[in-house]
């Protein structure tokens, strides 16, 4: 039994509110709504701090502060950071959306075009504005910043264009950079020193971030942040998932490609590396190590990976305690716990200039949707994509600011025909307690409440409430656009529990944002177009916040 995990921020996937229960959830009614006027994938969940609800729209961002004490939640203030439109062309189909965090009377905002901005939560005035990431090189800012003590921890995304991934800490008061470490390259730049105790790398080896790559390939090796980092103040550590190596074409980067597609634990004060678990070394399918990191009350770190296996880790040492299949998988026979790596199935190993068919899972599986852990039921609720893919790797050239890809991909449903599922996973038993199949892949996160209700949204715009113990459908609401963000619940100043969700998924391909996608091309939107051909267009291209309450 590991030490008790105490996370720095409350888990947004679980709420202790219990006014809405299995018995009364069926009577939920809309309370009010707010149209953002912005098209595109609204992937950032509404954030509630005190009497204010914050809504962050996709790029070019607008941040709205809605006053919950006034009827219909009038707009208190809005903030529009001046956008660098270059960033618009850099994101496609994954979760690099910027993000928002609140701490005390401050808000911390990551914008897609590389700014981290601190705002006064009461009035929306800018306290400081830093620009740690540069879209010209393909970098964007991933997910929400993590507030860890007096530091703001942020990381770069943009693996598809090849910039070296990094994690940095900014001073919360001034925005000045405290430390910055990279995910590829020599040990000094990766933050590897005396305190690094990897369980799955040779202990004496030096500069693995260079030697596991072809000469100089680590310089355009990707490996940015994949999803939001998680802090454990008791251990003084920050955990995060590194993104996939660049290019996609694996034949161009023989070697294990450290430290991409794995899980890093670092010292929150200095950024120094503590341990590293290779989840998908020499990543064949551009999975990264995405899927989320969830601390559980019994002192474990749970990671449902895009590769279809659910990992249970010891947060203090990184020891892999178990790895169990939770999605349809044929690309790996299992996980070798001694070396922590997947046992690959030869016939699904990609070869340059050849189309390898029916690889399961496909790259987008679980890459965006955040799972929720409920201490009340002990179950992990995973909004999953059950997809397979055909992939043809081809030679890619590195041109700064353009995608460093080298793969044509067609995504399709896994055998059985359904493209998604909400999986309630019993971690202790290592099996699904129940599963709700879904027609389309789930791209928004799940929310579990103490009232034993799980809320989640679908790409065709349904917000659903199911019984957390059985998966039985309790209630659903048809929103005006697809849902790719996590629902949120809060107690309003009137003392009642409300549920809020942002609808807004952009075009036909869901998280491919407001891009103009022609679905006749099966490889459009990294192959997503092929899986989402039957997705109906949204009723409203704009995003809308819907808020519900009991009558």
């Amino acid at each position, binding site marked *: 039994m590991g030490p008790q995990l105490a996370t720095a921020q409350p888990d947004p996937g679980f709420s202790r509110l219990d006014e809405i229960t299995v018995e009364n959830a069926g009577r939920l009614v809309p309370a009010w709504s707010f149209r953002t006027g912005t*098209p595109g994938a609204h992937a950032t969940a509404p954030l509630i701090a005190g009497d204010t609800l914050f809504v962050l729209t996709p790029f070019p961002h607008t941040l709205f502060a809605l006053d919950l004490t006034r009827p219909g939640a009038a707009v208190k203030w809005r903030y529009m950071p001046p956008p660098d439109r270059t960033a618009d062309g850099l994101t496609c189909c994954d979760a690099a959306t910027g993000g928002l965090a609140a701490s005390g009377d401050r808000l911390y905002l990551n914008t897609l075009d590389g700014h981290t901005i601190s705002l006064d939560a009461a009035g929306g005035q800018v306290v400081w504005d830093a620009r740690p990431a540069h879209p010209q090189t393909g970098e964007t800012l991933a997910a929400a910043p993590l507030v860890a003590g007096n530091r703001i921890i942020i990381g770069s995304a943009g693996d598809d264009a090849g910039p070296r991934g990094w994690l940095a800490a900014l001073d919360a008061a001034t925005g000045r950079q405290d430390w910055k470490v990279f995910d590829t390259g020599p040990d000094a730049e990766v933050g590897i020193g005396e305190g690094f105790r990897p369980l799955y790398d040779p202990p004496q080896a030096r500069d693995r971030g260079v030697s596991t790559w072809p000469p100089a390939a680590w310089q355009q090796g990707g490996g940015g942040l994949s999803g939001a980092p998680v802090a454990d103040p008791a251990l003084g550590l920050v955990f995060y998932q590194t993104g996939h190596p660049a290019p996609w074409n694996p034949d161009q980067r023989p070697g294990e490609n450290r430290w991409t597609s794995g899980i890093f634990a670092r010292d929150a004060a200095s950024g120094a590396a503590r341990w590293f678990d290779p989840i998908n070394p020499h990543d064949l399918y551009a999975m990264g190590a995405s899927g989320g990191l969830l601390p559980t009350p019994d002192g474990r770190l749970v990671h449902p990976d895009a590769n279809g296996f659910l990992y249970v880790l010891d947060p203090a040492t990184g020891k892999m305690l178990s790895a169990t299949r939770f999605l349809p998988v044929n690309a790996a026979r299992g996980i070798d716990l001694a070396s922590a790596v997947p046992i690959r199935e030869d016939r699904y190993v990609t070869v340059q200039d050849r189309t390898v068919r029916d690889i399961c899972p496909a790259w987008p599986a679980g890459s965006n949707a955040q799972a929720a852990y409920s201490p009340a039921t002990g179950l992990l609720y995973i909004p999953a994509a059950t997809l397979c893919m055909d992939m043809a790797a081809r030679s890619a050239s590195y041109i700064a600011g353009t995608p460093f890809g080298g793969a044509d991909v067609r995504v399709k449903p896994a055998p059985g025909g359904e493209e998604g599922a909400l999986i309630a996973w019993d971690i202790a038993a290592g099996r699904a307690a129940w599963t709700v199949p879904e027609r389309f892949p789930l791209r928004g996160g799940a929310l579990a409440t103490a009232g034993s209700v799980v809320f989640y949204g679908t790409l065709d715009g349904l917000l659903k409430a199911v019984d957390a113990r059985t998966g039985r459908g309790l209630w659903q609401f048809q929103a005006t656009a697809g849902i790719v963000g996590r629902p949120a619940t809060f107690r309003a100043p009137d003392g009642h529990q409300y549920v809020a969700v942002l609808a807004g998924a952009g075009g036909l391909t869901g998280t491919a944002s*407001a*891009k103009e996608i*022609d679905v*006749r091309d*099966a490889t459009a939107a990294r192959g997503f177009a092929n899986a989402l*051909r039957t997705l109906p267009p949204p009723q409203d291209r704009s995003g809308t916040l819907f808020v519900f309450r009991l009558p």
Partner: protein
Amino acid sequence: MRARHLLLAACAFLVACQREQRDLRTDPPVAEALGQVAVMPGGIGGRPAAIDRALGHPYQTNAYQLNQGKRLWDWFNCSGCHAAGGGASGPALTDGSWRYGPDMVSIFVSIRDGRPNGMPAFRGKLTDEQILQLSGYVQAMGAETASTAAPSRNDTMQARASENRAPAAAAFPKQVSR
């Protein structure tokens, strides 16, 4: 007599077989003149280079030039943003909707100088002639009429109806995201 007929038939046959001309090496003065397009002040539309007209618009009609464009499409990472024309982080090019104009000069300028929302400039990375080869290929992607000069099937994964079947693709209902 019979031999003479055979000879005549053979001559007629060979004449019919004349291949389209492929300029594997462009004359330097021609290459120099190819970039001399006159662009309208807004950056969309304009007059093609005089030499392109004088040569009979080879970058739109010559199968070799169009096929070179298709090769450059993958080599210069166009497919990274625009997939096989259906779009990803960049917009679709097969849907008949052009943000910055459908004519050769507009497409040429889009590739050479870049466009505001993330389209990088390829000036200095490609020659003017290569940009014209790409422009011709990009235009063929979104064409409304068939061109037998346009390239056919991919060598690897088939993503969509091939470029020389563009009207066949147009027969499908248009499903464009906006």
